[in-house]
């Protein structure tokens, strides 16, 4: 393990945003027009700097990551582990000894997510240029959100995990609520209450597990031998264990979100400012599926076996329902491109659920790879929407046409993202979807065949959107320059800052389409180990 100034890489990457917040706090806001502008730029570039360092550290972690170590429930094969006593109280009546550790480490499940978080947080700072008010608060909240997300992916102590999980809620609430669209208040509180509703049950399960195992260590909870006799979660496939699994599943499914817990998502995505939509879709949704794989699956493996059919079914419904809703955006309402992409997220996260339920190497690898790819591709899509919205102040599907002539570079980038979302071979989305279907077909052939319809529907809504907005005739109202004063947009086409956000993602999407191994290799051994754990648990339960 390498260290940075004597600090472990995971601690460093997680708490670096805190340092960034302190720096931002010290930047004065400026008196006149000019110093104000300088101050805002300083805020932006400090955030870019902080997230860039994070990305560099993430790449260093990637370079030093050993792909042969399994992790998941084996404490000895986690990497970059740091373990410090945090809370230690001995001999409490009723509670016994209370030990909470600051325990972080990564394995094949979390390594891709750490990489993804660093990447998305870095590129989303560039699309934060479009933020127009209260810059200091914005960037501070942004960094706090960054801290919470990174923490979730590295925490190996359930308590620590929970603290980070909840830590993100407040900044997210403010980021949507202050800098969002017209219905921001509604969207923000809906997101907040919905997610809190999910996580309070997680809290109860966490406490129950703590009493059964005697520690908050996630790895201890995964070992059936650690469960004390007579406690609430002791045994196999007891009612309470199944209930606990469902409670955890619902908590995580709200975050994913799968149908029928998805209703906060269209509101939150549509109302959030572009960079926050990017983070929501790019990282936050993955926390749901990551939580399942990190917490719910290895701790309650026999419940997975018990409920797996339902999980696969939920995955299928999410795929089809999300796709139909996205397609519906062409027909009804305001024909909002952002809403279309929001619903496409529901559909694409459905693939992840389907892949997880396959319980084989292909399916699960596909699922995690799909998490990564959906993160990059949807981030691109939301940024693309942001680019056009900043210029035209509308994102109606039928209000544009012929943008390809006006904005050729933009159209090129857009095409990469759209085709990647459809799953065109040669781009990263194809590999992960193919793996998911390959894996899922072995376990649930019928559901998989139905789910494959989602790909067709996906092609339909994406291509239709492409056709409507980029081909055909440019409407009269957009024929002039975007900004007649020429102050904000000098050219018709996409500008440098926006390219800085989009190009790295496009490169990743293309690169992983050709060399998927760069990410897939990270997870292979952990994935196989996790499947083994769940299979053994299932056999114990007589399934």
């Amino acid at each position, binding site marked *: 393990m390498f260290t940075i100034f004597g600090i472990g890489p995971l601690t460093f990457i997680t708490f670096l945003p805190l340092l960034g917040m302190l720096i931002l706090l010290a930047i004065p806001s400026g008196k006149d027009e000019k110093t104000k502008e300088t101050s805002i730029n300083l805020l932006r570039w400090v955030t870019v700097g902080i997230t860039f360092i994070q990305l560099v550290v993430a790449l260093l972690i990637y370079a030093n990551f050993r792909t042969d170590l399994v992790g998941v429930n084996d404490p000895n094969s986690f990497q970059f582990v740091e373990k410090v006593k945090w*809370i*230690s*109280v001995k*001999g*409490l*009546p*009723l*509670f016994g000894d*209370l030990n909470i550790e600051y325990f972080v480490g990564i394995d094949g499940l979390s390594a891709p997510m750490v990489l993804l978080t660093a990447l998305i947080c870095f590129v989303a700072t560039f699309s934060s240029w479009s933020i127009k*008010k*209260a810059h200091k*608060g914005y960037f501070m909240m942004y960094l706090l959100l960054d801290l919470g997300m990174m923490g979730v992916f590295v925490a190996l102590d359930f308590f620590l995990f*929970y*603290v980070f999980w*909840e*830590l993100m*809620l*407040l900044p997210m*609430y*403010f980021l949507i*609520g*202050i800098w969002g669209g017209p219905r*921001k*208040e509604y969207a*923000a*509180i809906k997101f*907040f*209450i919905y997610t*809190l*509703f999910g996580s*309070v*049950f997680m*809290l*109860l399960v966490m*406490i*129950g597990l*703590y*009493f059964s195992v005697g520690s908050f260590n996630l790895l201890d909870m995964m070992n059936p031998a650690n469960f004390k006799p007579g406690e*609430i979660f002791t045994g196999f496939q007891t009612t309470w264990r199944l209930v606990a699994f469902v409670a955890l599943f619902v908590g995580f499914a709200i975050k994913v979100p799968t149908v029928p817990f998805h209703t906060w998502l269209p509101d939150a995505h549509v109302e959030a400012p572009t960079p926050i939509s990017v983070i929501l879709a790019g990282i936050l949704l993955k926390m749901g599926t990551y939580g399942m794989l990190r917490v719910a699956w290895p701790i309650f493996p026999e419940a997975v076996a018990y409920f797996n059919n339902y999980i696969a079914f939920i995955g299928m419904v999410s795929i089809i329902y999300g796709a139909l809703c996205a397609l519906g955006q062409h027909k009804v309402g305001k024909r909002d491109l952002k809403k279309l992409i929001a619903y496409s997220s529901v559909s694409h996260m459905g693939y992840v659920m389907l892949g997880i339920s396959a319980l084989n190497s292909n399916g699960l690898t596909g699922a995690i790879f799909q998490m990564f790819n959906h993160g990059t591709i949807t981030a691109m899509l939301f940024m693309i929407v942001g680019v056009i919205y900043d210029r035209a102040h509308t994102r109606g599907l039928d209000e544009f046409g012929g943008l390809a002539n006006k904005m050729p570079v933009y159209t090129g980038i857009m095409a990469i993202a759209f085709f990647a979302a459809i799953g065109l071979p040669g781009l990263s989305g194809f590999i992960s979807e193919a793996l998911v279907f390959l894996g899922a077909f072995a376990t649930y052939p019928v559901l998989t065949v139905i789910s494959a319809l989602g790909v067709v529907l996906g092609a339909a809504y994406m291509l239709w959107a492409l056709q409507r907005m980029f081909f055909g005739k440019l409407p009269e109202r957009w024929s002039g320059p975007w900004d007649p004063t020429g102050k904000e947009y000098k050219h018709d086409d996409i500008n440098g800052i926006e390219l800085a956000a989009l190009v790295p993602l496009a490169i990743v999407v293309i690169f992983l389409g050709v060399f998927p191994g760069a990410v897939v290799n990270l997870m292979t051994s952990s994935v196989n180990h996790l499947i083994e754990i769940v299979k053994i648990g299932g056999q114990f339960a007589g399934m």
Partner: protein
Amino acid sequence: MDSLLSLFIGQYVADLKRSLALFAPELVLATAFVLLVIVDLIFQKSKYITGVVALLGFAVATIFMIVSPANTSFGFWQMYVFDPFSNFFKYIFLISGFAVVLISFFSNELNKSDRTMGEYYTLILGMTLGMFVISSAGNLILIYLALETMSLSSYVLAGYTKEIKRASEASLKYVIYGALASGLMIYGISILYGLTGTLSLFQINAFLTQYQGPVFPLVVASLLVLVGFGYKISAVPFHFWTPDVYEGAPVAITAYLSVASKAAGFAVFMRFLKAGFIDPTNASEQVWTMVSSIDWKFIVAVLSVLSMTIGNFVALWQTNVKRMLAYSSIAHAGYMLMGVTVMTEGGYIAVMIYFFTYLLMNFGAFYVVQLIANEIGSEELEDYNGLGYRSPLLGTAMAIFLVSLTGLPPTAGFVGKLYIFQAVINSNMIWLAVVGVLNSVVSLAYYAKVFRNMWLRGVDSNSAPLKYSIYAQLLVYAFVIPTLYYGIFWTPLVFWAKSSVMMFIGK
């Protein structure tokens, strides 16, 4: 005969001497009370000197608390109990006392030019003295007297800004409800006395271990006594005074009532249950057994669920922040009653941890409300729009306090809730834990309204920044920093509660 009498007198005097030495903090408060009256006569012009004397009184009492040896014994012939449990609550009262005096210094509504503040601080001392006594009382009559000492002071304090109509209304409502509650309570006490022939909690306990008679009169008497406690902790259905009084009283007093007065109510209720109704032979065991057939677990659980649910749901519709916080304090009484329901040492520890965190966040929230009211002259939710931009410090502090009241990490409020839920889950009352967590989700909906108005609305308003002195600002930090600190490193808190849960019950 003569020698027997002198022996008796000798013992009497010895006990008195010993008890008085341990009684020093209370004596200090009483002395400060008298001293304040005199100081007020001399320095009638000054607004702050009486407050400073009150602070000194609290400080000297704190010193006596610290230097007095750790002692667990009866005092004054079983009327009084000195034990770590009462000490914990006495510290809570002292911290609240410091806080309420300091907050009052920065209140514009109190420090008007034509008001003398002498009686105000005097009555705060009197109220604190009542709380000290009630947390140590081992006799029903003493409990009643201390309760009245507290109540009478608080009636006057609630209406101290008498030129404001709603303050007078608050005071009157408080008096009427208080009179009714204490009337019912003394009625219950008289029935208990008639049944058991004693007023000492410990002798009642001894009586109940052998009691074979009908349980009905016992239940009625206990429920009537419960009315008195329920009124003090403002648990549903004894809560009706709370919103009006909290809304009408000066903010500092509202904060004091919601924390210290509630703490006193909990202290005496918890002692009443444990000393009176728990089998003392195995009181140190993990699970307590009851000596009577009154189902206290069920009764307290019902109170808890009602308080949480009604408090939270009614708060959803409030448009006045003080009134909203009043309903929130009813809900918090419900959360804390969950810990009492468990009827174990662990449950009591959880309640005590919760109280400390509640002290920080609730005082903090009310203090911010007061600083805002000083400037904008309103406590209406509507008038809070854009305040976060007019004063980022107050906006941030308020958000932290409210998030803490909701119970989200990493704030102290989360730690309090965590221990309460742990206690409840460990005693297998999972349904109660589920009700509790769902309630905290509901509570978010109204707490969020406050920081929604402060931050999400009026972003572009160019109103002048809110003004407050540097000392007022320091006091904000004094509440914010521990709220965050104890949310992350709460070990000392748990140790303190753990070492204080020991309640002296004569064995």
